[in-house]
C-alpha cells in the first residue's frame, strides 16, 4: 500500500477541519472513507461509533438477505466490525471505498465461519484486487468513479435484474432454495445470475457520467 498517499490524505484531512476541503482527492472520498482513515490514524472511538452505527445495521440486513440467519448475521457483523477497528490503519482509499472494504471483510468472516479454520485471507489492499492504472492517472479518482457508476447503474435497474444481481451473493443453501422454489436446475439458476452480472457489466461500460 502507498503510505505516502495516505499520509498526504490524512494531513489534508487535518487541514480541512477548519478551512474546508481543498484537496481534489479529498473531495472524491466519501464521508465514510475519511471516517475510516481517521479511525486508522487516531484510533478515534467516536468516529468508530458513527461508522458502526451506519454500517453494522446495514451489514446485518445485507447478511440476512443473502442467507445468514439472525444469530449468524449478528455474529459476522460483530466480527467484521472488530476487524474494521483492528485493521483500519491498513485501509487504503486507493483500492476500495469504505463499503467495499467492509463488504470484503464480511465476506472473509462469513467464509471463516463456514470453514471454522482461518487462513491468511486476502486483504483488499492487496494489489491482487486492483490493477494500477497504466497511465499515471489518479487511483483514488478512478476507484471512486467506478464505485459511483455502480451505484448509479444499480439505482436504475429493473427490479427483476436487481433481484438476480443480489442473488449472486447468496450462500449455497439459498441458491438451492431458489432452484427448488422455481423448479429449475441449480445450474440454470447460476447461469441466470451470471448473465445478469454480464448484463450489468455491459451497462457499466455504456454508462456515461
Amino acid at each position: 500500500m502507498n503510505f505516502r498517499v495516505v499520509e498526504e490524505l490524512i494531513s489534508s484531512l487535518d487541514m480541512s477541519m477548519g478551512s474546508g476541503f481543498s484537496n481534489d482527492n479529498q473531495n472524491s472520498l466519501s464521508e465514510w472513507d475519511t471516517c475510516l482513515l481517521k479511525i486508522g490514524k487516531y484510533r478515534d472511538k467516536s468516529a468508530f461509533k458513527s461508522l458502526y452505527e451506519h454500517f453494522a445495521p446495514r451489514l446485518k440486513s445485507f447478511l440476512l438477505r443473502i442467507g445468514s440467519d439472525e444469530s449468524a448475521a449478528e455474529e459476522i457483523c460483530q466480527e467484521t466490525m472488530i476487524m474494521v477497528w483492528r485493521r483500519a490503519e491498513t485501509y487504503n482509499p486507493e483500492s476500495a471505498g469504505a463499503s467495499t472494504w467492509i463488504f470484503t471483510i464480511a465476506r472473509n468472516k462469513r467464509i471463516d465461519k463456514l470453514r471454522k479454520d482461518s487462513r491468511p485471507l486476502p486483504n483488499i489492499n492487496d494489489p491482487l484486487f486492483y490493477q494500477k492504472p497504466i497511465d499515471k492517472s489518479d487511483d483514488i479518482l478512478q476507484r471512486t468513479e467506478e464505485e459511483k457508476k455502480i451505484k448509479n447503474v444499480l439505482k436504475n435497474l429493473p427490479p427483476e435484474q436487481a433481484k438476480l444481481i443480489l442473488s449472486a451473493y447468496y450462500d449455497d443453501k439459498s441458491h438451492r432454495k431458489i432452484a427448488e422454489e422455481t423448479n429449475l436446475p441449480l445450474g440454470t439458476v447460476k447461469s441466470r445470475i451470471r448473465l445478469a452480472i454480464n448484463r450489468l457489466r455491459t451497462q457499466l461500460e455504456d454508462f456515461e457520467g
Partner: protein
Amino acid sequence: MNKQNTLTLVETLLIDYANGTLPLALEVLVETHISMNPASAKSIRMLLQLGGALLENSEPISLSEGSFEKLMAEIDSGFDKDREVYNNVSNDNKLLPLPLRNYAQDIDSPKSWKRIGIGLSEQAINFGDDFGSTKLYKISPGCSVPSHSHDGNEVTLVLSGGFTDEYGTYGPGDISIQETGAVHKPVADEDGECIVLAVNEGPIVLTGPVGRLLNMLIK
C-alpha cells in the same frame, strides 16, 4: 472443454469467489488466476465493489441491544487471534504467485516432487479438508502427460510455461477445464518447463460445488 464453456465456467467461478462459497482449493486457484490475469482481476474488483454498493443500499436493521458496548469491551480486552494468521505468509516459493505460497512445498527442492513419468512430476497439496484432490504438476519441455480421463471434474491453472491439448493452447494464468470422463493429452511447450495447478473434485462426481457448477453446462 471448448473455449466458450470454459469462459462461462470461469465467470461462474469468479462470482462464487466474490460471494465466498468456493471450497478452499478452488478459492486459492481463483486467487492465483486473478493475480496473473488482469481481466479477471478487474471482474473481481467489480464484483467486490458491487457487494459494497449492495451493502451500502441495504435497509438498516438494528442489532440486539448493547451490541456496540459488547464489541468495545471485546476490543478493549485486546485479544487479537487474527493477527498471527494475517502476518504468516511464507518466505519460500518466491517464484510462485503469492496466494499459493503458503500451501505448496518449496518447488525448487527435488524432495518436494514425486516423479510419475518421463519428464513428469507431481506434488500433492493438502488444504486440510475433504474436498477432492489438488496437485501441482511439473512437465518438462516437449513432454506430455499420458492420455488420461478424469474421475471428477478438474480445473487446471497454468502457473508457468504452457501446454497444448486437444482443446487448445494454454499459457500462464490460463484455466483449462476437464469434465468427468473427458480424455486429453496435454503436451508441454518446447520452450520451457510447464507447471500447472490442478484441482480435481475427486471421485464423488457432480455432488461437490464444482460438480454443481458444471451442472449448468450439461443441463
